[in-house]
């Protein structure tokens, strides 16, 4: 191949080639288009020429697409900001004109480069004031809420329960990181800090600044005075941190709790604060199930199976009850006996750690699989004495109107299910303690934070509550995995992403089935 094959711009091109290229580009008039189409039908050479011209065109798709680059966008914007930064020789009027884009650039997700000289910017008093306002608005909620009651906030900071609550929130990621600005009056330092903020934080500041600017001048003045007053306190740093944390926490309280805290009676106020702190800690406990990683949940489940094995070794009747119950349920519910066995085992394991009625434990199909009446409306005993028997309203559940208890079971008290659940005693403290060996260090740290309470009895209660919540979550994941695995082939196929379905469509039937089975099994550990 030589360069001579390449047509230069001044060299003639074959008229048919030119015609065909225009045809492919849709640039021909209707008349010309029809003429070309007729020739394509009649002339084989003409058709082949079209195909050959199409070849190179289609191959251009091989050129890689360029992906979006945040780095390129950010550096481009930085160059622009450098371009618009005011120079010392500019007049004040020019500076005012560029002030808005400068501060907008500062906060509207634009970065600053080192080329923006702090010295240059700080010569401008107006701009300095702007930076000060930005430092104020970072703590806007704190100043508005607690600015007039500094002593209350100092007292709060001295409250050990408050500190425990903050530590727990911080450790489980429910407390925003400390503010960066406002720790110093130095505008140069604040400007550097603003430069270092990520884009989303800068946008947040911009939003706060707009809010502040919308206030009446008197209100703005008042907030500035509070900010100045706080900055002059000897414990300024701690005070500001408490104010920020208080503002965040206050937002999460109920109206009643807020009313109590706003009370003028100091005793009532103190009591309201203590109640609200306890309520927050309780909420953290309850939500702790979402704080644990799936890897730790898998490990916990493994630990629970060891507990289960130990229990069934001690009492072999449990396994017999499980086997009989599985067969009964499989017949009654017309499901696969393996599926029934897996589900019932998980329900039984959940019985170890959770004594709520079954419909409260599992709000999904597993409840319909086992619709066994008990005093509380679900299977198994509560921590009280064994009662069994009909539901609270006296009716038995089941399709047959409950004449025989759960459909297919001879009677509640004697049913294999009842024997299984009633034969299980709750998990012991020692067993719960042993399960902590399956948690990683980070999770153990979270557990410590959540249970770091003053009194031993409170610590123990918190520990048991959290471990039970985590154990139940581990079991619930397994239930979901098995339910997913039990879906029909069509249901599994339809749950796939479009790209995966396209890939599966091309497989032979046996590979397709294997592909659907394997991808289901990959969800969660069995």
């Amino acid at each position: 191949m030589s360069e001579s094959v390449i047509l230069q711009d001044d060299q003639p091109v074959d008229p048919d080639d030119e015609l065909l290229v225009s045809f492919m580009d849709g640039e021909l008039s209707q008349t010309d288009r029809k003429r070309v189409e007729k020739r394509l039908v009649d002339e084989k050479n003409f058709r082949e020429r079209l195909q050959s011209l199409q070849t190179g065109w289609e191959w251009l798709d091989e050129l890689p697409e360029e992906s979006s680059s945040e780095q390129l966008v950010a550096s481009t914007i930085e160059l622009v900001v450098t371009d618009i930064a005011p120079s010392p020789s500019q007049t004040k009027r020019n500076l005012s004109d560029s002030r808005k884009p400068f501060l907008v650039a500062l906060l509207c997700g634009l970065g600053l480069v080192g080329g923006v000289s702090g010295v240059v910017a700080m010569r401008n008093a107006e701009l300095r004031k702007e930076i000060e306002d930005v430092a104020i608005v970072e703590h806007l909620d704190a100043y508005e809420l607690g600015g007039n009651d500094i002593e209350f906030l100092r007292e709060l900071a001295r409250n050990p329960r408050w500190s425990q609550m903050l530590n727990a929130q911080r450790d489980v990621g429910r407390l925003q990181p400390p503010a960066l600005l406002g720790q110093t009056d130095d505008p140069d330092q604040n400007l550097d800090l603003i430069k270092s903020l990520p884009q989303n934080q800068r946008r947040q500041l911009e939003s706060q600044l707009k809010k502040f600017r919308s206030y009446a001048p008197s209100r703005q003045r008042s907030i500035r005075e509070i900010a100045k007053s706080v900055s002059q306190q000897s414990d300024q740093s701690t005070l500001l941190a408490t104010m920020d944390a208080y503002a965040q926490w206050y937002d999460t309280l109920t109206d009643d709790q807020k009313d109590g805290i706003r009370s003028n009676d100091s005793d009532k106020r103190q009591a309201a604060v203590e109640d609200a702190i306890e309520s927050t800690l309780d909420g953290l406990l309850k939500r702790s199930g979402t704080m644990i990683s799936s890897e730790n949940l898998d490990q916990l489940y493994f630990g629970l199976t060891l507990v289960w094995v130990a229990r069934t070794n001690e009492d072999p009747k449990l396994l017999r009850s499980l086997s009989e119950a599985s067969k009964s349920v499989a017949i009654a519910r017309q499901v696969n006996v393996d599926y029934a066995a897996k589900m019932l085992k998980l329900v039984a394991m959940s019985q170890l750690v959770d004594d709520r009625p079954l419909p409260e434990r599992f709000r999904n199909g597993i409840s319909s699989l086992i619709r066994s009446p008990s005093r509380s409306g679900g299977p198994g005993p509560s921590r009280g004495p064994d009662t069994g028997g009909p539901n609270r309203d006296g009716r038995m559940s089941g399709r047959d109107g409950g004449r025989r208890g759960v459909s297919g079971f001879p009677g509640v008290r004697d049913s294999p299910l009842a024997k299984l659940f009633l034969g299980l005693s709750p998990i012991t403290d020692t067993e719960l303690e042993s399960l902590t060996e399956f948690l990683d260090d980070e999770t153990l740290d979270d557990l410590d934070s959540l249970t770091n309470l003053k009194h031993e009895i409170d610590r123990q209660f918190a520990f048991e509550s959290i471990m039970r919540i985590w154990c139940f979550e581990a079991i619930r994941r397994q239930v979901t995995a098995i339910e997913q695995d039990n879906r029909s082939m069509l249901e599994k196929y339809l749950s796939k992403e479009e790209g995966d379905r396209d890939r599966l469509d091309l497989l032979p039937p046996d590979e397709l089935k294997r592909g659907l089975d394997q991808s289901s099994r990959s969800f969660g550990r069995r």
Partner: protein
Amino acid sequence: MLRVREDDAAAYEELVRKFHPRLVRLMRTMGPRPDLAEDLTQETFMRVWRARHRYEAGAKFSTWLFTIAGNVARNSARSLGRRHEVNEVDAPSLPDTSGAMGILASNALEASGQMPTRLVEGAERAEVVRLAVQALGERQRMALMLSRFENMSYAEIAETMGLTTKAVKSLLSRARVNLREVLQPYIDAGVISNEVDP
């Protein structure tokens, strides 16, 4: 762009985000070297910012943007000294195709002299196509990229490149003929399939 004209920095950032991948792709073929594509893209956006007050309402932004991009690419090539000075009105640019053509020539010869043992795949195929495009003249390349990847009409390409529609038609015809000529030996040698993967 009208908001950018009013110094709206957020609007400008939006434009940068939207157009930068397309510009980078253009600059990979139009710039003197592929690795300069991002720098040239940034330079283009800087020029857009500086010229924002001159943007006319009613003008299509992409046409304006790619006009600037073409100028940036051309200037970069000149400043790197890899091309002769070109009078854009009178004479066609003299493409420095020797590098690309040489590589393609040697590959094609090698391919035709051997039993095709494998198809060129993936990145190698992309490289063959990139070199084929690189082998075209600068104006043919620009017209090809604008037509193929920006879906511009002949009239829009003409406005972007400062040419007549007739000139664009001729440029594109030559570009596609040349692509065919450059890639055909690869197809004939069985090194690349005649069929494009779906």
